[in-house]
């Protein structure tokens, strides 16, 4: 696949409003109507996509609830509205492939294969969490499934992902690195430095930009001189394309193609998934900056409901089958919450256990009121 980004036709391009932040409505809802035919995947796979998307939806709703109950602290960025993108991307990776994400990561952690209970326990700050309670919502990690971290600084993960791909290349492995980020990330220096390095050294990394059109409260048109973000790949002689992020099958197909190409050739690529963020930037953000048209479009595009409807009308699922999946998912989330609730908080005596991987002489282990001598 030697084609350049300019050859890829962006879904819905041309109808999107330019600068000024008002999206001329139709573009993304039109995409939703033009779903990829699900026939490309087996019914079992499609039902599993629906199960995972529903699981992430329920999980995130409970995470938000946990925040209002003060069981979850800090920041809490949800994947609500992006479930199709999350599941489509993760289904394209092997367990041995690596994933680096930003701070909006709960769904990715679950879809990459981490038990929801472990993810919820991390939100609760418990020892059974993905990072033993030391990372929280933004910093999940699991070597077993290849999640090499969620990162709280915008774009911090992009050079790291490039380096992981360098290590794979160094050893001649066939794993691929996926590096997820939001649209706002494409304007930082580290993004461009890393794209350049990955292309220069032919590293097997797929940069995935989730374009939900909002970097916190700033629209992509306000922050990116070229707001069709996949086109940025051209500057690095990298293949880039755009996909409808509300269409799980389309995301799976595009991601799978780019991942397998990177695996075979080592060539990096960039995928832009156009999606919606149903809520604010984080759970405490009422998103007052959104106009009603935009908020309504996000609600209408609901990928979980749309996919359910699509599977029922294609006879992949019947109402009972869908309801049964929803009940099972609800039970999984209840169990995750119970697990988190029942898990122990870290013991303050362990405070200094993870400062250094190689213990050293004179490592300071004093608590705030301790004397130095």
């Amino acid at each position: 696949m030697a084609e350049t980004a300019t050859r890829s036709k962006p879904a819905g391009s041309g109808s999107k409003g330019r600068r000024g932040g008002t999206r001329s409505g139709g573009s993304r809802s039109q995409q939703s109507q033009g779903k990829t035919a699900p026939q490309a995947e087996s019914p079992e796979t499609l039902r599993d996509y629906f199960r995972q998307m529903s699981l992430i939806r329920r999980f995130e709703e409970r995470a938000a609830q946990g925040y209002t109950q003060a069981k979850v602290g800090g920041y809490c960025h949800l994947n609500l509205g992006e479930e199709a993108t999350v599941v489509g991307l993760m289904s394209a990776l092997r367990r041995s492939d690596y994933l680096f994400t930003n701070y909006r990561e709960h769904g990715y952690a679950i879809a990459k294969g981490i038990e929801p209970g472990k993810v919820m326990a991390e939100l609760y700050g418990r020892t059974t969490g993905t990072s033993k309670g030391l990372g929280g919502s933004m910093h999940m990690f699991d070597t077993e499934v290849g999640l090499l971290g969620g990162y709280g600084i915008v774009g911090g993960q992009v050079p790291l992902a490039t380096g992981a791909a360098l290590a794979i290349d160094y050893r001649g492995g066939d794993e691929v690195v996926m590096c997820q980020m939001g649209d706002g990330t494409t304007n930082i220096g580290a993004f461009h430095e890393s794209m350049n390095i990955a292309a220069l050294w032919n590293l097997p990394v797929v940069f995935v930009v989730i374009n939900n059109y909002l970097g916190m409260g700033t629209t992509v048109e306000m922050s990116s001189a070229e707001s069709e973000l996949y086109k940025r790949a051209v500057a690095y002689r990298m293949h880039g394309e755009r996909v409808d992020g509300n269409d799980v099958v389309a995301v799976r197909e595009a991601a799978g193609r780019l991942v397998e190409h990177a695996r075979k050739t080592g060539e990096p690529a960039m995928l832009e998934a156009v999606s919606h963020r149903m809520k604010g930037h984080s759970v405490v953000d009422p998103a007052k900056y959104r106009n009603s048209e935009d908020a309504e479009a996000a609600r209408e595009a609901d990928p979980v409901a749309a996919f359910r409807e699509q599977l029922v009308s294609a006879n992949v699922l019947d109402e009972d089958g869908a309801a049964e999946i929803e009940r099972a998912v609800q039970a999984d989330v209840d169990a995750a919450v119970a697990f988190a609730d029942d898990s122990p908080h870290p013991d303050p005596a362990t405070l200094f256990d993870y400062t250094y991987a190689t213990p050293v002489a004179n490592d300071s282990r004093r608590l705030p009121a301790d004397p130095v001598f």
Partner: protein
Amino acid sequence: MAVITYRQALHDTLREEMLSDENVFLIGEEIGVFEGSYKITAGLLEEFGEKRVRDTPIAEEGFVGAAVGAAMLGLRPVVELMTINFSLLALDQIVNHAAKIYGMFGGQSNAPMVLRTPGGGGQQLGATHSQNIELYYAFVPGLKVVAPSTPADARALLKASLADNDPVLFLENLALYNTKGEVPDDMPPAEIGRAGVTRTGSDITIIGYSRMATVATQVADQLGEEGISAEVIDLRSLRPLDRETLVESVRKTGCAVIAEDDWLTYGIGAEIAASISDGAFDYLDAPVRRVAAAEVPLPYAKPLERAALPSAESLNAAVRQTLDAVGHRR
């Protein structure tokens, strides 16, 4: 036992480590074809090839971050940052990422890497190329910061840094590259977190690191000719900091002068002075003095640059003032 330069000690040790561990690779600007701005990596591209001696674009954040990511998967990158001034471009990757990987993820991953970088003034390079900002890194838990002052230390600390499973900022100094010293062939790695007592004495303690540790040793030798017995401590490790050794020395001598190339206010000497206050207050016969760089963006003009940097003369003068204050009889 060979007498070699600090530069040669670094080169030889890097080469040896590359020969013994194929996970060790070098990454940085101009380290390959150009053989390194300060020639530490001379000949290594030819010997080890592009895979292991990797010239990078001028993109510090990108390649330092790539080294962190590679280290997370078990490689052992040695990053050359052309000068510590340029490390500022990579500050996010060093402070927010390399230093946090182990703790933030509950010990599931780590970043075993060495960031080699020279600092220091005195070469008429102007304000942006002459800084001693190692403090920025020594401040951060999760990082280790070492500063060898002699060829032997350079070897022993580089070995220790490469064997370490954490990110280590390895501070070199432009003024030290051509200095010579004995380096035993079978030197064991140093212990990170331990200071060295390079001269023993009973009248006064002089504490320094990097270039100023060598200056302190010279000054102690000069004073010794006059019958003044100065003890010299070379910190070697800025994080972790070996407070025990320096406090023990001050308890013995009763007074101390700190010699540092960085700026006084909030500098490394401030932490040392506070440590002495914490651990040896009752033993002090005089206030702890600090000899540090003048607090200006370092000027280019030679007389101004010279006036701004601490020297053997300025350290000698400070030591004598302290000795006068305690009523030392020569």
